[in-house]
């Protein structure tokens, strides 16, 4: 939660400064953002690859846990594409790209803002922050009505870190490892799926 507030603060400072033209024009260059994105993705890769926890978790699980991140992927993409039918000014592709953020708002918004449009980037930022907040607040209720995978499912990519404590608290320690596994798989899938949806659909 604290992390998302800091990120929102950086976004807000940029936003307000942008509205009042407070920044020099070199900050607005496409190239700067592109290179920063290259560096970020390379670093995120290193961070995931060097996570020993990930490989430890993999050894302890049986095959059917792959169903959990798959559930989140299918559920999020189908859910958002159905919503796009109801909203007049967003198409299926855009809606699915936002849904493929799986709560990973920082990366998905940056990615979508760069590959598609800033407007969709902002939608991804807000939508995926909402997803994290809903998870933090609603896990107890969701678990009660939708079973023990519900918290991991709403948490999406955040189930491995920010929302893990609430998930474990309301579904039990034995589901903690499934939550971490699902979160890691989804974190890796965010850039891959967002790209595939925006480039090939």
């Amino acid at each position, binding site marked *: 939660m604290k992390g998302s507030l*800091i*990120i929102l603060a*950086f*976004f*807000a400072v*940029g936003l*307000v*400064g*942008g*509205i009042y033209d407070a920044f020099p024009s070199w*900050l*607005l260059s496409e190239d700067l*953002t592109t290179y*920063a*994105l*290259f560096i*970020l*993705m390379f*670093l*995120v*890769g*290193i*961070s995931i*690859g*060097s996570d020993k926890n990930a490989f430890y978790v993999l050894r302890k699980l049986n095959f*059917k846990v792959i169903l*959990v991140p798959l559930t989140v992927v*299918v*559920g*999020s993409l189908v*859910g*958002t*594409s159905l*919503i*796009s039918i*109801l909203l007049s000014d*967003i198409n299926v592709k855009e809606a699915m790209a*936002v849904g493929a953020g*799986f709560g990973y708002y*920082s990366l998905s918004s*940056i*990615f979508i803002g*760069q*590959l598609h449009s*800033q407007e969709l*980037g902002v*939608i*991804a*930022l*807000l*939508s995926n922050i909402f997803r994290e907040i809903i998870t933090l607040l609603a896990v107890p209720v969701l678990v009660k*009505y*939708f*079973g*023990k*995978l*519900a918290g991991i499912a*709403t948490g999406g990519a955040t189930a491995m870190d920010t929302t893990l404590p609430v998930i474990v608290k309301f579904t039990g320690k034995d589901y903690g490892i499934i939550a971490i596994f699902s979160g890691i798989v989804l974190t890796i899938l965010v*850039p891959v799926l967002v790209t595939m949806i925006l*480039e090939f659909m």
Partner: protein
Amino acid sequence: MTSYIVIALFAVGIGIGWLMRDKEKARKGVDSAVTWSVYLLLFLLGISVGINDEIINNFSRIGYKAFWLTFGAVVGSVLLAKVVYQFFFKTGNEE
């Protein structure tokens, strides 16, 4: 093009990360570098949104769309999670 470079760098990063998995200090450094690049990029996204009048003037509509997309993603995931849980994860003593 950008997207392919990004995915390639991501994949190379995962490989390099795997080789670095025992270098505790370097890992910490990488993690804080990730945090600061995220701050930088969100700050830059903020600026480009701020100078874009079309987005600023439609902010409430953008929030509205974001809310409903979240709703769709959450409901879709949770409903499917219920089915998957019933069929594959629920054990007899959890009835």
